[in-house]
């Protein structure tokens, strides 16, 4: 197949068998690749009710047809599994160089199944594929592991690794790559750890077949030129995602002190220009990126080098924990990266514990003597270590805020900030109904990357509850995750504002298959509905109540800033869901109807589960 290596590696970690299989035609046709192949494999191969940490769960690492090619931003890949954090669908996007390298080695995807008794790592050097002993790497940090493997194998090998967080079963452990890129959310690193798979090392030297090379080059030049000509390039290049920190603070969207409000009095210390001047050393991008958003930094205060912090980490480990110095945020970021835990969930868990402590729900007896509070960097570093090693209070927080609220009770459920068990990422939504709905209905839990609707909220009225706003969220939920199917990055579209429909002719020159942009959106909708059905299949009683937001946003007003005194009334939460389900063709309980599944060609696949 043009655009694909057309080969999948299947690694059985129980019996150590390695097989090479042709890419399933149906998956390429109906699900494209990336997270599409991920959910297709999860649905068809992982038994219903599988233990996320058991050998029956699978970890599916998938590139897409753009990966490895000269397409702006074509440096992403997806990691899918059943989530140990939520019990539902997990899919995490990873940037860097691994997706291209894997394609060059001749594989579109790797399916990890079973579980090893002893630590191993996967070695791939074109056709040579082996599972090798990783006992000397086990216990090491992510960045340390990457360096050790690069020293051992050679700089040209691309490495993905887990750290102590994944080894110790922290439910939001991530997979690290390229000195600071992560497949961060939902516990993909936890599943890797449960399989005793420490790392993946890949080198590839092959090419990727393209249907029409001449047309491909023309379209590639056109799209790269559009990126470089963008009026937005200069600013985005300088700041990356931190471009929005000041704006979020200004409009009341910067999560502050466990989302009690959206404006942080010390926010200016964390803004993009301050970070650029204080710690950024250089820009760092992924394969085929014309606008590197990564900011490689050095904190003199802590003597650390790291990629970041990017905006989500600044929001969650910074303002949401009350940290007022970008270098302290960098230190917390570095610890999470090295220990292999998701900075977003870690920030949510630490802020939750801090609020519990300040409300007297926890005491120093519960926190192993730690005095928790806002802007206490040493306590935050200590909590990160405890979480990663599951020590004391860290063992509770390692399970996520939903679990911690159940354990600690005393009304803490009111300020446990999650949806479906996943900690919310870094946008305060007391008064931003589109973004609130995006969080409620995101198919992995409270994550922003499927639909970043907050700009639309500000454009059309943040409190508006209208069919148009709901339609915008649904459009975004198809358009943005398309990139996770294709193996690309959405930033060239959403940050540089290049014409997103150009990806349709781009794909056509690669695959030779004529698909319009609308066809690709429809394909993405098919994937969205299958991921929804996965929740229905795996979570007993799944339905509308799983789409409810944390009470903080519909009962407790924001305490300061432009949204002070505001929250989204419960009736509006319900109205948003009613409109959303109706527009999606789902029933009032949020379950896709038979008609919708038939329309999307999913009926046979999901029949009879």
């Amino acid at each position, binding site marked *: 197949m043009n655009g694909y290596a057309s080969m999948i590696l299947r690694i059985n970690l129980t019996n150590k068998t390695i097989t090479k299989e042709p890419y399933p035609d149906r998956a390429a046709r109906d699900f494209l690749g990336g997270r599409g192949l991920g959910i297709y494999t999860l649905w068809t191969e992982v038994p219903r009710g599988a233990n996320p940490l058991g050998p029956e769960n699978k970890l599916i690492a998938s590139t897409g047809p753009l990966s490895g090619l000269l397409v702006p931003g074509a440096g992403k890949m997806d990691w899918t599994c059943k989530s140990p954090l939520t019990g539902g669908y997990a899919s995490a996007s990873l940037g860097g160089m691994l997706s291209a390298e894997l394609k060059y080695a001749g594989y579109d995807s790797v399916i990890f199944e079973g579980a090893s008794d002893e630590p191993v790592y996967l070695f791939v050097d074109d056709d040579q594929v082996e599972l090798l002993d990783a006992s000397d790497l086990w216990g090491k940090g992510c960045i340390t592991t990457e360096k050790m493997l690069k020293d051992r194998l050679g700089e040209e090998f691309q490495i993905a690794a887990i750290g102590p967080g994944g080894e110790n079963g922290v439910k939001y452990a991530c997979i690290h790559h390229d000195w600071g890129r992560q497949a961060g959310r939902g516990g993909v690193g936890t599943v890797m750890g449960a399989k005793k798979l420490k790392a993946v090392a890949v080198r590839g030297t092959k090419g990727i077949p393209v249907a029409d090379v001449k047309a491909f080059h023309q379209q590639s030049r056109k799209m790269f030129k559009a990126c470089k000509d963008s009026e937005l390039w200069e600013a985005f290049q300088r*700041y990356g995602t931190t471009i929005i920190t000041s704006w979020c603070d200004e409009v009341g969207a910067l999560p502050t002190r466990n989302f009690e409000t959206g404006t942080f009095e010390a926010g200016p210390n964390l803004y993009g220009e301050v970070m650029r001047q204080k710690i950024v050393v250089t820009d760092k991008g992924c394969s085929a990126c014309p606008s590197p958003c990564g900011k490689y930094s050095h904190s003199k205060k802590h003597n650390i080098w790291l990629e970041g912090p990017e905006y989500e980490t600044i929001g969650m480990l910074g303002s949401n924990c009350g940290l007022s110095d970008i270098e302290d945020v960098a230190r917390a970021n570095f610890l999470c990266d090295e220990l292999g835990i998701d900075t977003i969930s870690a920030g949510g868990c630490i802020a939750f514990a801090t609020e519990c402590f300040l409300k007297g729900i926890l005491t120093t007896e519960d926190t192993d003597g730690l005095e928790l509070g806002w802007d206490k960097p040493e306590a935050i570093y200590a909590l990160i270590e405890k979480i990663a090693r599951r020590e004391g209070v860290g063992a509770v927080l390692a399970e996520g805020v939903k679990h911690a609220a159940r354990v600690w009770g005393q009304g803490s459920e009111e300020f446990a900030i999650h949806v479906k068990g996943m900690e919310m990422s870094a946008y305060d939504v007391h008064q931003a109904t589109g973004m609130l709905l995006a969080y409620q209905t995101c198919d992995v839990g409270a994550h922003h990357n499927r639909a970043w609707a907050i700009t639309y909220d500000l454009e059309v009225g943040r409190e508006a509850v209208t069919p148009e706003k709901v339609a915008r969220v649904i459009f975004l939920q198809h358009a943005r995750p398309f990139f996770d199917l294709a193996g690309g990055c959405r930033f060239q579209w*959403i940050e540089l504002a290049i014409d997103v429909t150009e990806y349709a002719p781009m794909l056509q020159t690669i695959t030779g298959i004529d698909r319009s942009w609308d066809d690709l959106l429809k394909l993405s909708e098919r994937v969205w509905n299958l991921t929804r059905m996965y929740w229905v299949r795996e979570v007993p009683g799944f339905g509308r109540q799983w789409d409810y937001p944390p009470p903080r946003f519909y009962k407790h007003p924001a305490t300061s800033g432009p949204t002070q005194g505001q929250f989204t009334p419960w009736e509006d939460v319900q109205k948003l869901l009613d409109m959303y389900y109706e527009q999606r063709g789902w029933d009032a309980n949020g379950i896709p109807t038979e008609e919708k599944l038939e329309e999307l060609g999913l009926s046979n696949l999901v029949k009879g589960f």
Partner: protein
Amino acid sequence: MSPISITVVGLLKNYTQNQESLALDAAGKNISQVLAELGIPSVLVAVPLINGRQESKDYVLQDGDIVKLIPLVGGG
């Protein structure tokens, strides 16, 4: 005092009759005041770029400043 050059990007041009380049006698005024004069909602401006650097909307413009107003696009 010479007029200050202001470049308006993307959807913000909806508020300037589609004009991309403006020249305003804005020295001594801050960015928020300039946005108010132009009728551009502050919340739609993600980044006021002054001489290539992100500044706050309290920044007071000086003679010779080059201003670029960057809108929100997609984020996250």
